[in-house]
């Protein structure tokens, strides 16, 4: 049937030639015609050879496929002749499709599927709301005892599981003692989450009778155990480090447990709410208070979350004692059922919404730009089209041709967009990743975006973006084509200034102004974020993070406070003596980790204890070592920081920060003043020996609060005096030991040396998350940097496209008015006047666009509230600077065509048709 496929035009022509030749021969031989006449008659009798061939051709093939192929070839050729237009359109499309795809892929995946578990929409966490001693509302988990009762009585929840964090565990590896964090999980958790082990098995009810087993996380297996395939059955010593809070799993005084590795979890597994090295069955010490747990559960399908919360309050109130001590009931429900998914994304949802909005705006700008380009091209081709129509091309043919051209553009643009989208996803993932391990991983999180490592290009999104772009292409390339078909092509050839042309000009102007408006909104938004980011990263922190190596020290649990202090003392001495070390010291929960402790009351001579108790400005107490301020270059405003002379037997001394100094002493110099420290009915006069700059401890934009520093050695003897428990001493004086070592060379290169020193002093001491301080600062800025870079990229793209848009409109206007300009110049107009003529239009458009954009920005930047540091969403400075920069770029773009207009040669212009 498809034999025609094998026949070529040449084949057919040859057959006809044979026929004509045979007929000629017959005419000559049988009818005696001359050769010349015979040829003429043979050809005549054949009719129109070309016609026959054409009819053959039309029959030969499914015409439009062939036509389309020809159109595509023609389109490619004509695009190659206009590389500027082709490149601009394809790039614009690629940017639009690529950025939309990348952002939507990431955001969709995160907003819709933040948890890698089946039915994660119904997964909840049960929490208790309360008001703490400082008056702030907080949420905490229920106790393990409550959890057990809960599980027995609930009718709204299925499959409840408890997760109990284990803090400060260590294990020994060939690289020394390292932090080894874990959680205890109820035996049904893995089956509830549908998790299968990658190696071995997960935990189950069988482990309740033999709890000395653990399952490793994929990360721990790789990092700590070098991805050892034979890990199953290996005995791992898990040491419990100092001051285990609440969840004391160790019975009696057993300092460590030998546990058998029974499985390794797959890479994508993460316990909701925590990343850990290992998972173990629940073992609790009945003699201690029931620890607080993370209780996760599924709400039954037919039950609403409100109903579940109602039941939670009922059960929770029935089985728990009333709140006591510092903790008071919070307004609203005491127990609450929270959707886990919502919890995970709540913090970033506004930001992701902003990004989504931004990318929609970019897509709009892209579409406007493509429309503009295609309209301009349609106009340029008007005469070509008119000529072709008048020599016999059909309208359908012309429309098909336009269609082919935009199909080619859309296809190439779409392909480039897909590639760009894939690259964009990789880029976003990299930008979202935080390089931190160990304890910092828990402080910062591994990534800004949950599950970002699993995000890939969403093909549906790609398809949608592609369709939007293609439809724009079709509409705006067919618009002029339809118009040609409607108008008399003779008129089109003759005139240059039809009414339709004016209408089209208006459309293009509106598109260009629209682009300016949208780009201004984005640029102002990005400007605010950038400004805020710069403010945050250059915010004068009281410390200097460069050339500082930080790490956390983890002691074995069985060490006494005295032994720890001895070890610390030795370590500090050795570190200070090491080459390239300028200073070394530590603070309990140091800078950027931070934890606030309120211990007793500090009463200066001019106040009474009662006054101080009612004072909302309660000073926080931090235990530090000599050298810490020097290592971090925290500015000492007056007096001095601690030194070796402030030992346990020296007169009790404190260093205070600027805030408390001003609060207590106003403008007077506090150095030498006495502050009485009241703890547990004990009263100790402390001498102020120095005032230091305020340090933002928790983060770069944390609040500054009054803070009092106490030397750790004196702290110990004082706490003994007021009868602090040993566990309390471990906790409030040592806690997490954040060391800072100032080096004269690159701090990263000092790391091996520091590790060696620590090993030499005591090989049982664990090191956690050793890294240069400026990387820690960078980690703290990661989220802000992410938002600023993302929105900034979009804004710059939109700005560029809008600039191209306004340039296009003006350049086209100049071409259109070449004749008019020529006449004006012939009549004696000066170059300057011509320049003004064109520039005026550009100025008006730019001003209108940017002004409208600023109005839009004023309304839109409210979305950024909460993402800004140190500026308001209506920051006047940002508005002014961004709009004036953008305006000058846009006017610069207007200047080019205006400049071109002045070079119009009147003679040529008038002669031009």
């Amino acid at each position, binding site marked *: *049937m498809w*034999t*025609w496929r094998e026949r070529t035009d040449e084949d*057919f022509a*040859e*057959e*006809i030639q*044979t*026929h004509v*030749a*045979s*007929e000629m*021969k*017959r005419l000559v031989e049988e009818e005696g015609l001359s050769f010349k006449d015979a040829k003429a008659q043979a050809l005549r*009798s*054949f*009719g*129109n*050879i070309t*016609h*026959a061939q054409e*009819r*053959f051709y039309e*029959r*030969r093939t499914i015409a439009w496929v062939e036509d389309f192929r020809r159109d595509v070839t023609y389109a490619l050729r004509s695009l190659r002749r206009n590389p500027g237009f082709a490149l601009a359109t394809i790039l614009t499309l690629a940017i639009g499709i690529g950025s939309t795809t990348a952002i939507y892929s990431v955001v969709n995946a995160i907003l819709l599927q933040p948890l890698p578990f089946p039915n994660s929409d119904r997964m909840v966490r049960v929490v208790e709301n309360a008001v703490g001693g400082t008056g702030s509302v907080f949420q905490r988990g229920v106790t393990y005892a409550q959890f057990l009762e809960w599980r027995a009585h609930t009718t709204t929840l299925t499959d409840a599981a408890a997760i109990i964090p284990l803090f400060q565990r260590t294990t020994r590896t060939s690289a020394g003692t390292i932090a080894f964090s874990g959680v205890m999980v109820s035996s049904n958790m893995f089956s509830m989450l549908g998790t299968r082990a990658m190696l071995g098995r997960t935990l189950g009810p069988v482990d309740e009778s033999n709890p000395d087993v653990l399952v490793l996380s994929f990360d721990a297996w790789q990092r700590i155990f070098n991805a050892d395939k034979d890990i199953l059955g290996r005995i791992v010593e898990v040491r419990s480090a100092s001051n285990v809070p609440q969840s004391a799993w160790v019975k009696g005084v057993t300092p460590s447990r030998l546990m058998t590795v029974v499985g390794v979890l797959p890479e994508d597994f993460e316990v909701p709410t925590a990343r850990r090295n290992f998972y173990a069955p629940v073992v609790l010490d009945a003699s201690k208070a029931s620890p607080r747990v993370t209780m996760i559960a599924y709400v039954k399908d037919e039950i609403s979350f409100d109903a579940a919360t109602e039941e939670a309050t009922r059960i929770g109130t029935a089985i728990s004692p009333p709140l006591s001590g510092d903790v008071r009931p919070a307004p609203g429900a005491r127990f609450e059922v929270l959707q886990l998914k919502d919890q995970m994304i709540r913090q970033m949802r506004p930001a992701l919404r902003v990004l989504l909005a931004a990318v929609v705006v970019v897509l709009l700008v892209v579409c406007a730009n493509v429309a503009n380009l295609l309209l301009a091209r349609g106009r340029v081709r008007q005469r070509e089209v008119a000529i072709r129509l008048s020599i016999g091309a059909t309208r359908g043919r012309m429309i098909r041709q336009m269609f082919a051209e935009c199909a080619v553009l859309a296809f190439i643009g779409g392909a480039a967009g897909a590639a760009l989208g894939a690259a964009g996803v990789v880029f976003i993932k990299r930008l979202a990743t935080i390089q931190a391990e160990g304890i910092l991983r828990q402080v910062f999180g591994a990534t800004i975006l949950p599950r970002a490592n699993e995000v890939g290009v969403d093909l549906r999104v790609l398809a949608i973006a592609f369709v939007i772009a293609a439809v724009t292409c079709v509409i705006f390339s067919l618009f002029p084509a339809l118009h040609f078909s409607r108008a008399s092509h003779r008129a089109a050839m003759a005139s240059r200034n039809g009414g339709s042309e004016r209408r089209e000009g208006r459309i293009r102007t509106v598109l260009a102004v629209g682009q300016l408006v949208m780009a201004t909104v984005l640029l102002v938004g990005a400007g605010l974020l950038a400004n805020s980011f710069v403010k945050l990263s250059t915010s004068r922190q009281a410390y200097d993070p460069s050339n500082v190596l930080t790490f956390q020290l983890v002691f074995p649990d069985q060490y006494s406070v005295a032994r720890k202090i001895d070890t610390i003392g030795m370590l500090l001495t050795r570190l200070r003596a090491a080459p390239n070390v300028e200073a070394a010291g530590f603070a309990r929960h140091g800078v950027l980790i931070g934890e606030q402790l309120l211990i007793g009351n500090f009463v200066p001579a001019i106040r009474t204890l009662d006054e101080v108790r009612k004072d909302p400005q309660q000073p926080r107490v931090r235990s530090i070592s000599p050298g810490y301020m020097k290592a971090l270059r925290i500015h000492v405003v007056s007096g001095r920081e601690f030194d070796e002379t402030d030992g346990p037997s020296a007169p009790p001394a404190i260093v205070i920060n600027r805030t408390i100094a001003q609060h207590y002493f106003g403008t007077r110099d506090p150095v030498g003043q006495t502050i009485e420290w009241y703890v547990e009915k004990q009263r100790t006069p402390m001498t102020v020996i120095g005032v230091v700059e305020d340090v933002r401890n928790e983060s770069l934009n944390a609040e500054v609060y009054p803070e009092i520093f106490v030397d750790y050695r004196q702290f110990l003897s004082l706490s003994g005096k007021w009868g602090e428990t040993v566990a309390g001493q471990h906790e409030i004086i040592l806690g997490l030991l954040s060391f800072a070592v100032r080096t004269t060379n690159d701090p990263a290169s000092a790391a091996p040396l520091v590790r060696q020193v620590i090993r030499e002093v005591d090989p049982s001491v664990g090191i956690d998350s050793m890294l240069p301080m400026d990387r820690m600062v960078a980690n703290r800025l990661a989220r802000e940097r992410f938002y600023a870079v993302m929105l900034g990229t979009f804004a710059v793209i939109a700005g560029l496209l809008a600039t191209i848009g306004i340039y296009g409109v003006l350049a086209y206007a100049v071409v259109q008015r070449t004749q008019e300009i020529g006449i004006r110049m012939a009549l004696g107009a000066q170059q300057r006047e011509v320049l003004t003529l064109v520039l005026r239009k550009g100025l008006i458009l730019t001003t209108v666009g940017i002004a409208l954009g600023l109005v839009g920005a004023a309304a839109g930047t409210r979305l950024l509230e909460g993402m800004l540091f140190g500026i308001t969403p209506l920051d006047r400075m940002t508005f002014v600077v961004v709009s004036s920069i953008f305006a000058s770029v846009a006017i610069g773009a207007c200047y080019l065509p205006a400049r071109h207009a002045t070079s119009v040669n009147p003679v040529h212009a008038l002669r031009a048709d």
Partner: protein
Amino acid sequence: MALLQGTLDLLILRTLLFGPQHGHGITLSIQRQSEDQLLVDHGSLYPALQRLEDKGLITAEWGTSDNNRKARFYTLTKAGRKQLTAETQQWKRLASAIGRILGSGEA
């Protein structure tokens, strides 16, 4: 006399009943057999041949003509033969019906 619309296909098939033939040969054959009453428009012959080929009623292959020319020879297929029988009968019925109408008018 020009051919009636739709009859060319039938005549081509009929001509090929006597063996493979090339385009020019088919033209001559039709003209001769109709005693030069019917003239084939050479220009419409080839589209007709192509049409028949597409329908699978004839096949074609290149060969050499009597005067040693390269020519494309057409052969009737089995389906073509069937079609020829059916169309011949239909044509005869049609012709006799028209003949009766015209004949009665003339008489």
